[in-house]
């Protein structure tokens, strides 16, 4: 969708019914089970809050006094996530230079036909043989 035409081959219909049933069961069970509990005749009216509820002052006080260790750990988490994202997204050095014929035969190399003819009808048919 967002990565161009070649990233969006024609939709195959394998497992579409099972997928729909799964999603319907999830959504309906959630709605049926929880929504009636939340909608009652008399709403639990919330009284007015204190003036400093949710202010930067009191929120920061809570954050730094009650959760300082998780706060610092979250900074480490974000740093690790950024480093990992860069490491994963950058790939191996010089990968595009000499591995286009695929030095990894088991890893399903790039298929040029899928790039050139993304709308080719053979896509949906040929892929259907997979278990």
């Amino acid at each position, binding site marked *: *969708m*967002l*990565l161009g035409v*070649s*990233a*969006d*081959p024609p*939709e195959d219909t*394998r*497992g579409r019914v099972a*997928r*729909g049933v*799964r*999603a*319907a069961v*999830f*959504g309906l069970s*959630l*709605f049926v089970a*929880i*929504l009636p509990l*939340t*909608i*009652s005749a008399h*709403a*639990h*009216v*919330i009284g007015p*809050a*204190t003036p400093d*509820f*949710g202010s930067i002052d*009191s*929120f920061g006080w*809570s*954050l730094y006094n*009650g*959760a300082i260790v*998780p*706060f610092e750990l*979250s900074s480490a*988490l*974000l740093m*690790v*996530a*950024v480093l*990992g*994202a*860069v490491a*994963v*997204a950058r*790939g191996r050095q010089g990968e595009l230079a000499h591995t286009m014929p695929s030095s990894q035969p088991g*890893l*399903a190399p*790039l*298929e040029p036909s*899928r*790039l050139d003819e993304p709308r080719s009808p053979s896509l949906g048919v040929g892929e259907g043989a997979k278990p």
Partner: protein
Amino acid sequence: VILGTEHYVALSTVLFGLGGVGFLLRRNVLVQLMSLEVMLNAVNLALIAFNRTRPDAHTGQVFAFFVIAVEAAEVAVGLAVVLSMFRLRRTVRSDEADLLKH
């Protein structure tokens, strides 16, 4: 109508359900990541709504803060994985991410 906690929880339930249904229905990994964001934000809404009923503490808001931080990390890693998968397989469909299957 006066908005109470129930309305926020109902909205949170609807958002969570929509996110879950979208995650189960769609096969585009990017759309699945968006659905995941919707589900996490529904949880944030419920946390903050419940925190509003106990204005003497900010526990729910602090928890939502950490949920947002984890969400950011997850999206960064998730998009990197999607990019890597697109380089390898030229697709972002999640049912074609079967490199570990065979």
